[in-house]
């Protein structure tokens, strides 16, 4: 928060004051009030404020966007003029001017409460210090943040805050990253006058993720506002009054939100901390690695904190376009799955049906021998939902060299619509959803993945119609895809399946934000679900969709009246038989309500898994429909959720992956691979934004990166792939899908409305949409190995 820097600055300036000529003064006096020791220096200082331009850079690189240049007003912060848009608060003006105002209750993404009083500043002609977070800046206002009045006000507030705060920093998990600690060092007094008994508060049970030590609470109400406004679960409240005031749920209640972990981040003290992380490490022991999340298609930006070879915790990173500063609970807490059930040695199943650990050389030789014994069309490859683009590229290249083109990524179904990028991307963009004013969610189950999406949706538009078309096929046929909420999934999931809350929690959060901000209308087609915002449940089967397409449904007028209607289709429909019919119905709806225009593309697909978008970009499309039934050689690259029931019993199965999950039980050979925390890989999220992971910890045992294993296998099999380095693979990827190389940029699909597809002759079936995600907390190999996720599903999903 820059407060450490502030503290440092305060310390530095006091040193300068005590020793006016530091070169000649070796002995430094330590005094709490340096001005008293050196009155001349203290007096001289305010008269000549150093024109320190470096100091004036906006806090955290804040940029000001003037929607209307005429709305700019000028205020003076510590004498420096600064231009800000109308409606900014005094605190925001100070941030633009580069002055970091201490605060506890103010959070830029929550409503303003103004109850901590830490942000008091002096404003000229105001008789009292004003709370800057709640005070609108007025033209010509002269704000003073560094005067004795402001300093004394802060010191007084800090003394009150510390009155009932226990002195348990040494045993507090927030110690070292605590706002209260930092700010009391920078702004507090070195002594207090409180001699009475400190109060104590009963701890609350908020579930398996959030640990509470309510005595430490300073009643900033950030968690209450987060739960109400962002997470959409009105469970937390401020109970009691005066010194008996406490945060709680009153009745015994667990926090069932899929975003509940974020209260740990917003809590400025150690009242709400992470239960799985409790007493595990200190934050200064941790090494942060900025990477991205792969448990859903949103591609939330995360920071993996590791100590030595262990992943200790996962925190969100700010990315306004994707996850803002939230992440879903699955993203935050699945990391203990990385330490269990790991595959660390290549293994071969012997004649007795038992696995035996072997050397890489032997394992590769066996596979290379078998692959030459089967016919090319009997070779099938399936990429898993956690696969990175590099390994999928290598897999496709390798199998192509072996003469097969039966490669696909689980979750995309057997006939993915990979020809047009707009057919499988969240075309509006996750942040673009905030502009929508009507949502139709079709069969998405944002529930998991979509929670984030839902949040997005909330924030997006006044008429958000969410059609949840829940594709029954999704769940039954390819539970893998739907199980796993991905960045892409959130958007789609919201629309089509159970609820975006499960498919893409961050997208759901975005929808929720939009709905809250603009009262966008949301229509939902899919299985009954609990979206945490106002919505109309239009139906459970594609028949409703047909009615809307034929203008026979009351929701049609909402859609056609909307300026920016957004239709979000869950990736679950990829697995349905009548996929084409549903898509053509959706396209008709989009055409009717003018959802696709040059300036707005409101036809969105919300993918479920991190690998899906990149797989479709790279053209991982199976050649024949029933390749599994006729396969003799099946290469599973981390694919655990493909249905292997129809696989011939004499087929040879190679499983390459990092966890001993569903896939290994049918495998003949196991290749251990690295998890996403241990390798560098490219992932594309549901809105088409390519991002790269970075290795945070070393890999386990003999495991290797996925693409390297395939590269080695290709050499042993005599069909050497022409790349030896990651950059080599990437230049190959550039030839296929150049957008995957443009990291952190959203490559929007170029949609050509003129390009009309052949009319689908398929009939829409009346089969209701199914749940794409059965269990939000356990969707892939890593989360299924996680104890914390198992606890969550046991405690939070039972209703």
């Amino acid at each position, binding site marked *: 928060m820059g407060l450490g820097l502030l503290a440092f600055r305060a310390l530095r300036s006091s040193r300068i004051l005590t020793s006016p000529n530091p070169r000649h003064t070796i002995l430094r006096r330590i005094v709490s009030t340096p001005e008293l020791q050196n009155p001349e220096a203290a007096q001289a200082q305010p008269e000549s404020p150093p024109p320190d331009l470096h100091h004036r850079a906006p806090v955290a690189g804040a940029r000001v966007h003037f929607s209307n240049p005429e709305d700019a007003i000028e205020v003076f912060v510590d004498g420096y003029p600064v231009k800000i848009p109308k409606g900014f608060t005094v605190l925001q003006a100070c941030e633009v001017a580069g002055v970091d105002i201490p605060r506890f209750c103010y959070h830029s993404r929550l409503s303003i409460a103004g109850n901590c009083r830490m942000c008091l500043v002096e404003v000229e002609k105001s008789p009292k210090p004003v709370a800057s977070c709640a005070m609108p800046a007025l033209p010509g206002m002269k704000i003073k943040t560094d005067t004795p009045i402001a300093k004394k006000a802060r010191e007084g507030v800090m003394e009150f805050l510390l009155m009932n705060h226990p002195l348990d920093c040494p045993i507090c998990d927030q110690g070292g990253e605590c706002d209260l600690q930092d700010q009391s060092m920078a702004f507090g007094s070195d002594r207090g006058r409180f001699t009475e008994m400190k109060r104590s508060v009963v701890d609350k049970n908020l579930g398996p993720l959030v640990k509470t030590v309510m005595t430490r609470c300073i009643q900033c109400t950030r968690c209450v506002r987060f739960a109400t406004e962002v997470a959409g679960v009105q469970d937390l409240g401020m109970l009691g009054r005066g010194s008996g005031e406490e945060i709680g749920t009153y009745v015994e209640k667990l926090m069932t939100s899929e975003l509940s972990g974020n209260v740990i981040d917003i809590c400025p003290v150690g009242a709400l901390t992470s239960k799985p992380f409790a007493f595990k490490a200190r934050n200064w022991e941790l090494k942060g690695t900025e990477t991205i999340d792969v448990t859903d298609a949103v591609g939330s930006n995360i920071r993996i904190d590791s100590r030595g070879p262990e992943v200790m915790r996962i925190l969100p990173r700010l990315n306004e376009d994707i996850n803002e500063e939230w992440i879903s609970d699955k993203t935050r807490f699945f990391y203990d799955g990385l*330490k269990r059930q790991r595959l660390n040695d290549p293994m071969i199943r012997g004649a007795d049906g038992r696995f035996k650990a072997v050397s890489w050389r032997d394992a590769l030789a066996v596979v290379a021998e078998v692959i030459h014994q089967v016919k090319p069309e009997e070779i099938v490859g399936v990429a898993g939902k956690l696969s990175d683009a590099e390994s999928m590229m290598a897999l496709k290249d390798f199998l192509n060299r072996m003469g097969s083109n039966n490669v696909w990524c689980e979750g995309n179904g057997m006939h993915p619509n990979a020809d047009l990028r707009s057919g499988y991307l969240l075309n509006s963009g996750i942040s673009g959803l905030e502009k929508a004013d009507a949502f139709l969610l079709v069969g998405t189950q944002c529930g998991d993945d979509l929670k984030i999406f839902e949040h997005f949706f909330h924030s997006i538009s006044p008429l958000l119609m969410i059609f949840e078309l829940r594709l029954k096929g999704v769940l039954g046929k390819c539970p893998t895809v739907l199980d796993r909420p991905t960045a892409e999934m959130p958007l789609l999931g919201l629309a089509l399946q159970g609820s975006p809350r499960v498919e893409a929690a961050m997208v759901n959060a975005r929808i929720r934000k939009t709905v809250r901000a603009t009262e966008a209308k949301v229509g939902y087609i899919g299985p009954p679900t609990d979206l945490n915002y106002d919505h109309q449940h239009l139906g459970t089967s594609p028949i409703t969709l047909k009615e809307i397409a034929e203008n026979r449904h009351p929701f049609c007028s909402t859609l056609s009246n909307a300026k920016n209607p957004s239709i979000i289709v869950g990736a679950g429909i990829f697995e349905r038989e009548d996929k084409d019919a549903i898509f053509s119905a959706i396209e008709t709806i989009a055409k009717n309500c003018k959802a696709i225009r040059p300036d707005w593309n409101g036809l969105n697909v919300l993918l479920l898994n991190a690998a899906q978008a990149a797989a479709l970009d790279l053209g991982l499309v199976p050649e024949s429909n029933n390749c599994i039934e006729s396969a003799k050689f099946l290469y599973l690259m981390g694919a655990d959720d493909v249905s292997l029931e129809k696989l011939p019993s004499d087929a040879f199965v190679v499983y390459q992956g990092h966890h001993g999950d569903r896939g290994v*039980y049918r495998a003949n050979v196991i290749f251990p691979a690295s998890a996403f925390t241990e390798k560098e890989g490219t992932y594309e999220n549901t809105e088409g934004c390519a991002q790269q992971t970075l290795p945070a910890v070393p890999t386990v045992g003999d495991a290797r990166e996925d693409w390297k294993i395939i590269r080695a296998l290709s050499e042993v099999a005599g069909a050497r792939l022409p790349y030896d380095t990651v950059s080599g693979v990437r230049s190959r990827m550039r030839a296929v899908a150049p957008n995957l190389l443009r990291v952190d940029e959203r490559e929007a699909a170029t949609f050509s409305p003129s390009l009309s597809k052949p009319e689908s002759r398929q009939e829409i079936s009346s089969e209701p949409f199914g749940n794409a995600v059965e269990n939000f907390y356990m969707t892939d190999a890593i989360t299924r190995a996680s104890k914390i996720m198992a606890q969550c599903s046991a405690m939070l999903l039972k209703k």
Partner: protein
Amino acid sequence: MASVVKNALKGIRERGIGSFIREVRDEGYLQTKIHNIGATLVGVDKFGNKYYQKLGDTQYGRHRWVEYASKGRYNASQVPPEWHGWLHFITDHTGDELLMLKPKRYGAEHKENLSGEGDEYIYHSKGHSLNPGQRDWTRYRPWEPATKA
């Protein structure tokens, strides 16, 4: 005063004059004993540390002190918490009185801080190669193929 002399004579008789003088010099024994003249012994804790107080014309803030039981290797962490308050003028209740308030159920025994006294007292975090718990600690648990084969 008389006891000081008596103890000194006893020491000389037992150890001989040479070692007695060396001991007195090395341990500041004489200095401590001279300082203790005229002071009241307020209490002795269970480690044998003696707590003295001298009221009257002693400067306020220097009127309480401790004579450590171990003369050669002493440090401030040898003062148990019940006496700490008295010794540092936090309270006027002596350690013996405060000991009665100590909860029986969960009050831990006082232990001096042994940092710097040898490798076995150094704290090693979990996962550190010198931590004895390291032997039980594994970075990850591999998948066991035998479960179903």
